[in-house]
């Protein structure tokens, strides 16, 4: 067994903990943004509230649905159901991409409504753009990791169909996939939760 892989598999607890810490750092980034938002709003001066377009409701649903599929993939992987794992990951991936697409649609709708980013005398608009854009960037990085996990699951699926696969190597591959899905599960659920929080925060504070 490759020592490096063995090292990683043995260190699973540490990896999950590190992911939690990473989540804390992202929380701090958005704590920074949202407090800047509140400070700027509270300081008075130009600040025109607006209604968030309904399309953002659709993206909220999409990202929540994607979390459900990732949970399915996770449970399937635990029960060693390889096909279901791949299917779950696939739908999570598609829904994640759709989420980003709908966010872009939402930004375009906002621009059409006259709420734009550059040289907008109303700072509420730019704040909305920056906060949602940075969140979408995080989702995009999540999509990248989802894609890697998905490809990995396909490899595991195909290898297990061949008889000659070395049993030990198969176990390593499964172990690695479990780490990937475990870490993704945390990260992706967090991004979904973060979006729901941001959605309510912005909705509430832009009224």
């Amino acid at each position: 067994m490759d020592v490096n892989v063995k090292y990683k598999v043995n260190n699973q607890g540490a990896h999950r903990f590190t992911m939690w810490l990473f989540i804390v750092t992202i929380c701090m980034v958005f704590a920074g943004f949202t407090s800047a938002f509140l400070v700027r709003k509270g300081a008075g001066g130009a600040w025109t509230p607006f209604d968030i377009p309904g399309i953002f409701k659709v993206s909220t649903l999409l990202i929540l649905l994607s979390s459900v599929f990732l949970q399915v993939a996770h449970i399937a992987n635990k029960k060693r159901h390889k096909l279901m794992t791949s299917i779950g990951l696939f739908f999570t991936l598609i829904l994640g991409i759709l989420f980003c697409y709908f966010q872009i649609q939402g930004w375009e709708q906002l621009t059409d409504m006259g709420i734009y980013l550059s040289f907008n005398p109303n700072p509420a608009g730019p704040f909305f753009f920056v906060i949602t854009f940075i969140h979408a960037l995080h989702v995009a990085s999540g999509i990248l990791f989802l894609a890697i996990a998905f490809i990995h699951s396909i490899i595991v699926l195909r290898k297990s169909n061949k008889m000659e696969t070395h049993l030990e190597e198969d176990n390593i591959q499964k172990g690695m996939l479990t780490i990937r899905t475990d870490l993704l599960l945390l990260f992706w659920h967090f991004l979904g939760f973060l979006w729901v929080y941001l959605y309510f925060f912005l909705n509430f504070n832009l009224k």
Partner: protein
Amino acid sequence: MQTTTVTEPHVKEHSQAAHADAHHHTETFISKYIFSLDHKTIGKQFLFLGMAWAVIGGLMSVVFRIQLGWPDETFPWLEKIFAAWFTDGKLNPEAYYSLVTMHGTIMVFFVLTASLSGTFANILIPLQIGARDMASPLMNAISFWLFFLASVVMFSSIFLPTGAASAGWTIYPPLSALPQASPGSGMGMTMWLIAMVIFIGSTLVGGLNYVSTVLNLRTRGMSMFRMPLTVWALFFTAIIGILSFPVLVSCCVLLIFDRGLGTSFYLSNIVIGGKALPFAGGSPILFQHLFWFLGHPEVYIVILPAMGMVSEILAVHSRKPIFGYKAMIFSILGITVLGFIVWAHHMYVTGMNPFIGSIFVLFTLLIAIPSAVKVFNWLTTLWRGNIRVNPPSMFAVGFVSMFISGGLTGIWLGNATIDIQLHDTYFVVAHFHIVMGIAAFFGMFAGIYHWFPRMFGRMMNDTMAYIHFAITFIGAYLIFWPMHFLGLAGVPRRYYTFNEFAAFSQYATLNKVITIAAIVVFLGQLIFVVNFIYSIFKGRKSVQNPWEANTLEWTSPIEGVHGNWNGDLPEVHRWPYDYSRNPNSDVDFIPQNVPLTEEEKKDYVHH
């Protein structure tokens, strides 16, 4: 797979088996020395790059100090070396501001954050807690290479025809937000921001790993309250970084949008050359809040590792248990918590509500309590100790001296009423250079002299080290002590020349003295660099445990092996400060991996 790193702190059999596996892998030069995943190598990489940065940052300060010392002279020979910065033998004002900005950025972030934490967290955390490597060696390597990338970007910005960023290391808008503000606010500032965003990535990836390693990979018996104070300090440093650096990301992101995408988060009502800019409604004070929410914890990121190392070094070299082990830990915790709620003491002159200001005064002055606890404990550790005078202990004592001198002026500046008078004067410059610049450097030097044998298997030259110490200690006070008086007289910082001000130009001689001292101190550091490089190759070979210390890093083979220990990981039976425990014994130290004797078991109250 180039590494052979394996770990499994709680299952001995596995680690042994896996380690036997490890030797099957051959290593190339590149995988061993360049893209290494071994924490010991990565620590050295951080150290080398940090030293290069320190020399560059120091040299910059010498160049602008020459301008301040002799504002009327011309220096054609300097122009030959730094042609781009000089016209007719005189330093350009724009270049002066770029140099001041880069000196601050390099010293605060690249040397005292990345290199200090990076070097010692890497070398000490796994070795002192008994782990085979970091929780994620790959992330560890990524942390260094991101730092390297940030360094490349920051370094190349110095050579831009328009000059490097010049808005001060705090990059306050609108200077930093408007490319029209100064030549350095164009491409120089853009590259500064790119470099810093990469740099923050490096710090975060590293910090996540350090915290995770400390909490997950301690060897058997190494409970939290048996950890050396170095590990505690590096652990809290990483936590501060994790909580504060992300806010600098938010701060920089909003600035990047203001610079490139026409938003007005920090900009409002700006008229340049009679023409109003289309920015409206922003607030530069908002930037200061976000910046200092990082910026203040940042000074503890700089000083805590030095504090941790000094605690360890003083205990080892005075052959006494550290005084108040738990008090040391809880004072670090106190500093960590309080450090997050005092940021607005950098902003007393922003028109802040005096009531809010007084709350920040209160919190700021409260930090004096844990700081004083630490100073008291260092002094009482030394008190009646069997002190061994050698370079690490000299620098550790020097650290305590600097920390007291600089800390006392902190109490002045923490008071809003005094700060309003002294704000942006040389008093502030003197305060923060002594308390977080020189003190942190002393801690770093103490650490390098102490752990050099652990890193390179050889000892550094003592004579050169003592000369280095004398020059640095006396020279640092000569540079910064007079600055307090300049500041009290109201001399403002960051000015290019004081010729036009009758009130300030009378201090021209004092400024010359400071500059001469700065040049001597800079040259003194070159002695250290020579000693360092010479000793790597030609230094006296070190024995396994040259300082007769208790911590686990001295039980790992001094030549450095992959996985840190051949065979099993050591098991810990006692705290790390059992010095001079048994007066009847010839040996005055008992390493952490020595089991308790029957007699000790009866009366061993510590941990």
